[in-house]
């Protein structure tokens, strides 16, 4: 853990998967500036200059492409009257875990550092915010978290990560030993590896780090679940399908009301793939004022979902409204669920042509449970392309780790470029040591002593 550093830290401060509203908290001297970079206040209101302990309504957006992320309520609390005695910004969002994660990623990209466990509390303590009795409790929290991490480490997922990072670190240390030997023992009769070989080693390490970084999105899927919508015309069996999925798995993680009144959200696990399933109101042309609101919400859900399960009644002929709905679904992947397989299938169903984003069609009977297994297998295949390889245990599931890996990846790339540009060893080594220290923050290991040991075992030093 970084100790008493004066930078700005950020974290999701409500547990993932719980509650409809999430808070992303920033603390540190740049908290307000950083939040400002990703926030558009309504009517152009700005965070800077706001009075302490006030709320501002607006939208978070991705400054890279300008797209909106979520409608948020931002509270600005100025030092010293805050929990950490630093400037604090809390971004309250209601878009669920995915939005929270996205906002955290945005503030990190805008200059915040993902906080280590217990770091807010630690700052609160160090800045004199907590009293004597709370002090020892803080140590216990931090220690228990460290121990918990340790336990997790021997555990499959993170253990795999440590090992993987250990191997990459090892490769970087090997490069570093070459560079350091070239500097410290240039007057000795030693042969260090040629530049091409060192370049190759760096490129390889960079590739592995990059691949590891890319698993963080897969890790996030595992952690937070896939945003899934069940849609269809009224009475095709959407709710029955949801119930069938629930009944089959008996793996309800949480059952919380969705962020909107008329969409119900359930978290379920399908073959180890977590889904957050929204059951939407049936879509049809209507004049009823209440129903119109429900249908609009359904349409919105269709737009934002990662996975859409479009349900049709297989015993009936394909209707114009079915076809309109199919075209409206843009999510990729989407699955056509042909319900009521217990009844005779109407001949028009077999000839139904599906848009490209539909990656599967499955016949089920929500009533009898027939075909539900097939549906589950299709979902599994879709998201992990048949290779949700749990033996590939190096998955990054933690935002702080993801940020550290990303920094190490960039530093390794920079080291490679410096080597290619014939920069001297001691400069390359500076950058490489930064990469190693980032990786060391994940595994809790430092490597400085290793390097001399490696030099002495690899090279015959000593005139």
């Amino acid at each position, binding site marked *: 853990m970084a100790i*008493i550093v004066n930078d700005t830290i950020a974290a999701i401060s409500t547990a993932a998967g719980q509650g409809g509203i999430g808070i992303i908290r920033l603390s540190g001297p740049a908290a307000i500036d950083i939040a400002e970079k990703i926030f558009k206040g309504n009517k152009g209101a700005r965070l800077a200059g706001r009075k302490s302990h006030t709320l501002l309504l607006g939208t978070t957006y991705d400054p890279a492409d300008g797209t909106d992320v979520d409608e948020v309520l931002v509270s600005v609390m100025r030092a010293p009257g805050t929990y950490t005695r630093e400037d604090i910004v809390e971004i309250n969002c209601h878009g669920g875990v995915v939005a929270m994660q996205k906002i955290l990623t945005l503030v990190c990209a805008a200059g915040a550092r993902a906080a280590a466990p217990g770091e807010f509390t630690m700052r609160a303590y160090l800045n004199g915010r907590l009293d004597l009795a709370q002090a020892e409790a803080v*140590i216990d929290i931090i220690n228990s978290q460290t121990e918990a991490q340790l336990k997790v480490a021997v555990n499959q997922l993170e253990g795999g990560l440590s090992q993987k990072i250990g191997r990459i670190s090892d490769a970087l240390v090997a490069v570093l030993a070459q560079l350091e030997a070239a*500097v410290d023992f240039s007057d000795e009769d030693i042969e260090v590896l040629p530049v091409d070989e060192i370049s190759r080693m760096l490129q390889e390490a960079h590739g592995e780090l990059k691949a590891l970084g890319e698993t963080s999105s897969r890790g996030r899927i595992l952690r937070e679940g896939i945003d899934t919508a069940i849609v269809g015309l009224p009475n095709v069996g959407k709710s029955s399908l949801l119930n069938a999925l629930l009944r089959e798995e008996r793996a309800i993680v949480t059952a919380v009301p969705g962020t909107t009144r008329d969409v119900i959200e359930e978290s379920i696990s399908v073959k180890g793939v977590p889904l957050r399933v929204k059951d939407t109101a049936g879509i049809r042309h209507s004049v009823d004022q209440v129903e119109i609101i429900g249908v609009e919400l359904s349409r919105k859900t269709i737009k934002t979902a990662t996975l859409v399960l479009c349900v049709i009644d297989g015993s009936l002929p394909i209707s114009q409204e079915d076809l309109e709905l199919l075209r409206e679904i843009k999510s990729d992947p989407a699955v056509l669920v042909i319900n009521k397989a217990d009844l005779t299938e109407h001949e028009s169903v077999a000839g139904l042509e599906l848009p490209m984003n539909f990656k599967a069609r499955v016949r089920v009977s929500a009533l009898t449970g027939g075909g539900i297994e097939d549906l589950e297998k299709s979902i599994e295949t879709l998201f992990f392309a048949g290779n949700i390889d749990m033996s590939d245990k190096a998955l990054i599931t933690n935002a702080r780790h993801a940020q550290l890996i990303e920094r190490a990846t960039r530093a390794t790339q920079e080291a490679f470029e410096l080597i290619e540009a014939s920069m001297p060893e001691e400069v390359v080594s500076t950058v490489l040591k930064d990469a190693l220290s980032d990786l060391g923050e994940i595994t809790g290991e430092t490597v400085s002593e290793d390097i001399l040991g490696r030099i002495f075992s690899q090279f015959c030093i000593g005139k």
Partner: protein
Amino acid sequence: MGKQAYEVIVIGAGHAGCEAALASARMGCLTLLLTISLDKIALMPCNPAIGGIGKGQLVREIDALGGEMGKNTDFAAIQLKVLNRRKGPAVQALRAQTDKKVYEDRMKRVLWAQDNLSIRQGSVTEILLRGGEVDGVRLACGFTCYSRSIIIATGTFLQGQIVIGDIIRPAGRMGELPSLGLSDSLVRAGINIGRFQSATPPRVDARSLDYSKMTPQLGDDEPRPFSHTTQTTQRKQAPCYLTYTSKDTHRVVEENLHLSPIKTGAVTGHGPRNCPSIDRKIMNFPEKERHPVFVEPEGWHTTEMYLQGLTTSLPVAVQEKIIRNTPGLENARIMRPGYAVAYDFIYPDQLYPTLETKAVPGLYTAGQINGTSGYEEAAAQGLIAGINAALRVQGKEPFVLDRSQAYIGVLIDDLVTKGVDEPYRMFTSRAEYRLLLRSDNADIRLSGLGFELGLIDGERHRRIKEKERLVAEVAGSLESTIIQPTDALNDLLVGAGTSVVNRSISVAELLRRPQIAVADIEWLAPQLKQLTEEERLVVEVDVKYAGYVRRQLSQVKQFKRLEARHIPAELDYTQLHGLSIQAREKLTQVRPRSLGQASRVSGVTPADINALLVHLEQSKARSPV
């Protein structure tokens, strides 16, 4: 029985002892320097060279703080060479071959001429204590000297034993009496002692060598001096020679390995990994077909040549055979055999960064006794111990350099925080902030501190301030010197292997290209002409690697925050909530001065540091300062 009182007593007149005694006397303390033999002052018992990569930086820093080693080396140099010239300028280092006798003679004259400094021959057998603090020393002759600050700098002499083959005899160096009794006195005072060994190669007669089979190794044509005070180093330089061991050399060693003290067990302590004997090199790297042997003159007035690379303590007859089987040395006559020396050292994690022992207030140790190897490492510690011993007498705050200020800071922090498991030698890779800690800017970094201590005079300090101003000004001006693309410029760029420019560009930008050196752009920025070669180097590194220098500066800022969190020396770690058992033990032993130092103690985790931090805040809240 005679007795006398001094403010500071220094035991041992090697490289550590000389610097310690001079620093203390120069800071105004009445100082006594004790040596077993007045004829053996500032000896170089091993290689006839000072400086090198990492070590050269130490010498420059010693000089910047007003120490003597740099000046003495410049005076005694018979060859000067900048190492790592082909690497980045940030890790360049100076090495000198020296005339050993000239080195000793000049150092003696400097000591003789120093005010406040007495020098006396005598072997210390006991450290006298009073009330748990240091009080004086008793000499073998019965004489007693009193002082509240005592520095032990006895090198390899504590219970020293030299070994050649199966011959083992008590000696501090070949032919010199060891220091007996002092070790026991330290143990009685509660200090833990370990045993290390070191070795030196045979010396051969220069007249018996065949130089036609060796490659001459020359110094620089325009040598740079170590000391900022040295005006010229333009004098006659002597060559060294390079040859290589042969298959026959290796065969001889292999056939006689069973006689090697490392095999027979005559030598048991750890030796330095960076300086293995030829026995060990052939054992550990059997696939290597040849090892280099540098033949180095020991001075103008001796015919002794030092065989760098042939360190061994095999029996003399085997040493003869090894040499005879090495090209160029077929007829070499050994003048002194190689030998190993085993000696007591004190585990340096028993010291504060002032080099004062934690067990005995007022008792300091410096040099090889602290488990280091090398003249430069010894001198650096001597200087720091001398300064702190004097400050203690004067009731002033101690003087500690941190890892971001100097290689000397890295050296001492490593010793007192991490301890040693082999004789410690400086390498540049030990320094985290290597781009900042450079040979070229040592005076800019440290002269101010030397001036405050009274070890650098006002005139020299003023000159260095002026140099600092000038290089900063020129470095800044390169950023604002904009030049237009011309054929002449582009020809030069292409010639250097980099791309042409087609718009105006600052000279600094050009200099940041890896292929471009400061010499290439001098004609574009005439302001560079007013600088000395060394000043140009400062400008070059600061401009060329500006981004990386800035990065390290910001890391230093973070580092300093942790260093600034002081831990009281009396803190009871056993009572501290939330520390692991291992951390408790290690922290109790090391007793770090700051949170930063604590974080570098091996076995101490970030969780431990947080627990410690919480505790420090807690006690601060209890007793507001």
